[in-house]
């Protein structure tokens, strides 16, 4: 507004002065103008107007010049502010920022760069990395610059730069910067020190390697002890059973062939030998089952637990066809599971066998094999109304050789439930028991479905 008023005022001044000039100087100017060649006489008012216009133009030019000057300096101020702001942005970061032209000469670095490599911003301009860093490093930096130029958009890489305490690793982003015509004339690099991260990563990797080695060592140890157990079980199977078979065999031969030369006591003692060998045979078999349950590879397939149970029941009935009082046994049909059939048979043999044994003194013995759903999970059970047990001893049940009943009450090796526990655990299932003395016991177990079967099932060769 001010300028416009100045202009109007100037115009007025010019017009007024022009009139004055006209009055005082018009003859001279008129002569001058007429001498410049116009044949027609220039009217004095036109002269005045012309002169006024020239003066006005001159004034306007002067005014404009002043205005432009002011605007330019204001723009320069703004640009300086802008530059300072941008410099603050690049100077107040922990990242190293630098700008190099397309031939690798420095244009700009930030303060972090200055401090890290001990060089001032104004001194670095025009230098290249080959003036500042070892040749191999400088080559790398240059190669990455060229890559960024060729790529046209930001690329990321790791770079190594020398520090007082040794080489540091940087994660660097580089991107080309283009001029108004779109030609890339510079590369900007932003590098962040990730040395600590790298060291932590390296430490983690080392720890991992150590851990893997330890796992390998332990696995080898375990495999060795498994092999030991394997050969132990094998020799138990052969070396203990063979002499036992001889003891049992010759005792029977004596009873059969020499009965007439043995009195009643002699025969009774031999029968006791036979009964003991029988128990020992059972014990060896149970021990073998226990070790087998721990070491054989699971060969899983769909298993019909109902059918397996029926077989076990049939075997028990066949072994003791005239059991006093009889037993009512109910097997729920269609009990489907997924597991190792041979091992699951062992589970049922032990659980149903126990139920059979502990209901022996009941006149109305009942055994039930079935399943129930609990929290969306199928729970199998073997339940009886036999001798039961005191829940105070529930923890002892699944421990090898721990017996809840005296041997004279109910014979047994004390291994059966340990076998059950081990087999179910290897399948990734759970087993637990409930009981009440004189009223009966219930053994529950779960088996993971095919999809979430934990241990990989490898088919035996």
């Amino acid at each position, binding site marked *: 507004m001010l300028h416009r008023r100045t202009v109007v005022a100037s115009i007025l001044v010019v017009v007024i002065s022009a009139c004055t000039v006209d009055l005082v100087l018009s003859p001279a100017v008129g002569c001058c103008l007429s001498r410049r060649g116009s044949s027609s006489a220039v009217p004095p008012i036109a002269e005045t107007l012309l002169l006024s216009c020239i003066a006005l133009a001159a004034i306007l030019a002067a005014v404009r010049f002043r205005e432009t000057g002011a605007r330019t300096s204001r723009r320069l101020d703004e640009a300086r502010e802008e530059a300072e702001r941008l410099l603050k942005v690049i100077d107040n970061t922990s990242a190293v920022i630098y700008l190099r032209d397309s031939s690798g000469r420095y244009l700009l670095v930030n303060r972090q760069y200055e401090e890290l490599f001990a060089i001032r911003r104004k001194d670095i301009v025009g230098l290249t990395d080959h003036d500042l860093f070892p040749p191999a490093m400088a080559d790398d930096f240059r190669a990455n610059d060229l890559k960024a130029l060729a790529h046209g958009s930001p690329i990321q890489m790791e770079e190594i730069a020398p520090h007082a305490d040794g080489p540091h690793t940087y994660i660097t982003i580089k991107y080309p910067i283009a001029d108004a015509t779109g030609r890339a004339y510079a590369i900007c690099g932003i590098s962040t020190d990730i040395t600590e991260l790298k060291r932590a990563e390296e430490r983690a990797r080392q720890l991992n390697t150590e851990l893997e080695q330890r796992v390998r060592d332990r696995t080898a140890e375990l495999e060795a002890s498994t092999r030991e157990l394997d050969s132990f079980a094998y020799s138990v*199977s052969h070396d203990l*059973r*063979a002499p036992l*078979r001889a003891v049992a065999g010759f005792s*029977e*031969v004596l009873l059969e062939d020499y009965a007439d030369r043995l009195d009643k006591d002699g025969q009774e003692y031999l029968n006791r030998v036979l009964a003991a060998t029988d128990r020992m*045979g059972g014990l060896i078999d149970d021990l073998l089952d226990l070790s*087998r349950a721990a070491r054989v590879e699971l060969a899983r397939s769909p298993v019909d637990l109902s059918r397996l149970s029926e077989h076990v029941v049939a075997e028990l009935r066949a072994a003791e066809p005239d059991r006093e009082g009889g037993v009512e046994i109910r097997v729920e049909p269609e009990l489907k599971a997924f597991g190792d059939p041979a091992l699951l048979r062992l589970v049922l043999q032990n659980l149903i066998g126990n139920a059979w044994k502990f209901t022996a003194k009941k006149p109305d013995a009942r055994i039930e094999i079935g399943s129930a759903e609990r929290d969306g999970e199928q729970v199998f059970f073997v339940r009886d109304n036999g001798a039961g047990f005191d829940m105070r001893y529930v923890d002892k049940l699944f421990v090898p050789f721990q017996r809840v009943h005296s041997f004279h009450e109910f014979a047994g090796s004390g291994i059966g439930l340990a076998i059950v526990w081990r087999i179910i655990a290897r399948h990734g299932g759970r087993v637990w028991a409930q009981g009440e003395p004189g009223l009966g016991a219930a053994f529950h177990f779960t088996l993971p479905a095919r999809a979430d079967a934990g241990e990989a099932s490898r088919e*035996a060769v």
Partner: protein
Amino acid sequence: MTDAPILLVEDRLDDVLLTRRAFAKAGLGDRLLVLSDGEECLAALLPAVGAPRLSPAFVLLDINLPKIGGLEVLRHIRADGRTRHIPVIVLTTSAERRDIRDSYRFGANSFVRKPVSYAEFTETVRVLSAYWLAVNQPCPPDPACP
């Protein structure tokens, strides 16, 4: 029923004595021939050309044998045309899945675990003999085989 011998390959004297008696009980005592290791067994079944060859009605083979093991003996029996047809019953103490599997894989006709109870064993011997001597007689050797 031929009078071909029944071959028992067994190194434990206890087992030999008890098995012999079990066969005697089954009325076959005089037909039982005992060899005590794998080498002897192979020498009798697969002798050098010209030597007399033993041709048993069936073989009861232990797995744990000195010199040449039972499974190796079985492999040789099945590999040779002269003996391929002879029924072989693996009769052993082991009940290892591995032993059972390997026995059948190498061509055993049957796998029997020696029970601790001698009465049971006697019965087993009687049933086995009846089966392999009377019910399931092997085909004569194939003349086309070398």
